[in-house]
């Protein structure tokens, strides 16, 4: 029988909770930012304006061809150079996530927009709405609603991926667990606990998404 010390977990809960807060904050901000940016990219890809289409397509192809870990690392060094001042690890990681994930959200929003019939946009224009108003009030709300389950699924993946900020020394949930596990030499307990937490959260969220999907496609 291996000796499994629950106290090692309980003792470290406050610290782990801090890590979890960072993970959730990063996920929330990155998801919000990249959904907005992804939607803009999707509109560019669908704009019919060559230059915009090219930018949108290039963006998607570029970031989808890179490992996320590389992007995080790269931006950690690049962002301070570009803006010519110190940027903390959280902000540089956030920027990296937003730019990277936008490529994926872009494709989701693009298929969402394409799923709305042309007649809906026509009806908007026929009322005298401009392009931006038609998108904002007519097309995007419907596209967003139709794509909500997939957007959430992508966000669950994003949440798991935030554990990669490990490499720039941010104390997210995963990194906090590693830190205390090594300090206390309680690897088994803490890794098991961490795995269970990730599993419970992501599985729970996926189950919720399934419910939602049923509701939307009813």
């Amino acid at each position: 029988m291996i000796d499994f010390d629950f106290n090692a977990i309980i003792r470290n809960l406050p610290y782990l909770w801090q890590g979890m807060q960072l993970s959730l904050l990063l996920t929330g901000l990155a998801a919000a930012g990249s959904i907005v940016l992804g939607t803009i990219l999707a509109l560019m890809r669908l704009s019919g304006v060559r230059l915009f289409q090219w930018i949108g397509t290039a963006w998607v192809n570029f970031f989808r061809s890179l490992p996320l870990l590389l992007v995080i690392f790269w931006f950690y060094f690049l962002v301070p150079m570009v803006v010519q001042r110190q940027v903390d690890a959280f902000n540089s990681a956030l920027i990296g996530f937003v730019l990277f994930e936008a490529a994926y959200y872009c494709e989701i929003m693009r298929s969402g927009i394409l799923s709305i019939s042309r007649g809906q946009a026509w009806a908007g224009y026929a009322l005298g709405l401009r392009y931006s108003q038609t998108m904002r009030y007519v097309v995007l709300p419907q596209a967003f609603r139709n794509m909500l389950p997939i957007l959430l699924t992508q966000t669950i993946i994003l949440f798991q991926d935030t554990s990669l900020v490990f490499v720039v020394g941010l104390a997210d949930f995963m990194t906090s667990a590693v830190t205390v596990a090594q300090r206390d030499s309680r690897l088994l307990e803490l890794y098991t606990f961490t795995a269970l937490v990730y599993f419970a959260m992501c599985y729970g969220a996926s189950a919720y998404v399934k419910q939602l999907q049923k509701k939307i496609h009813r």
Partner: protein
Amino acid sequence: MIEISNINKWFGSFHVLKNCSTQVAKGEVVVICGPSGSGKSTLIKCVNGLEPFQEGTITVNDISVGGKGTDLSKLRAHIGMVFQNFELFPHMTAMQNICLGQTKVLGRSTTEAQDRANALLQRVGLGELGYKYPAELSGGQQQRVAIARALAMDPIAMLFDEPTSALDPEMINEVLDVMQELARSGMTMMVVTHEMGFARRVADRVIFMDQGEIVEDATKDDFFTRSRSERAQLFLSKILQH
């Protein structure tokens, strides 16, 4: 009021509108009919610039639709359009559908827009149903909301593209009645439809299109009693059998 002269339009290499010319005077009701694929929808969408065209001119109240300096959105705000598939916004209630253009385009206040919407819902016989979503309404009710939505913009003319052909037969009349009332009130209307009963009762003129051409453009009486073209006669005999 609406002047269409020598319109030519291509989809790629497909010549969809060939030298189409006609005009609609203020208060006039013009019915457009013709076989499927003859270009009726395309023509009517050219009138409010939803479809661009390569040659010719269309003016509405002397404003050129294809003109370089024309603010199309501004022009469209004053031309109502009703679609075959209603095209109500499914994420909004009937009331919100009718208020959207009023508030975002005309700049009316919410209460003003709602008052107008309520009056129009009364007019199309749906007084109590403003709170419903399109999915909760029958096809005939949806189309009447769509008509109310267009009327809320105080249009100078209304365009209808087969407003009843997606409806179950028992709902066709409730929509046609609203359109007839509208015509009686003096609205300028272009109506693509195969409802020849409606044309007989309401139209001033009938246009027959085939393969992208306006083959006949006649007063109602002339059209039904002495259609000159064989194609129109063939079409009429087919359609009146039903």
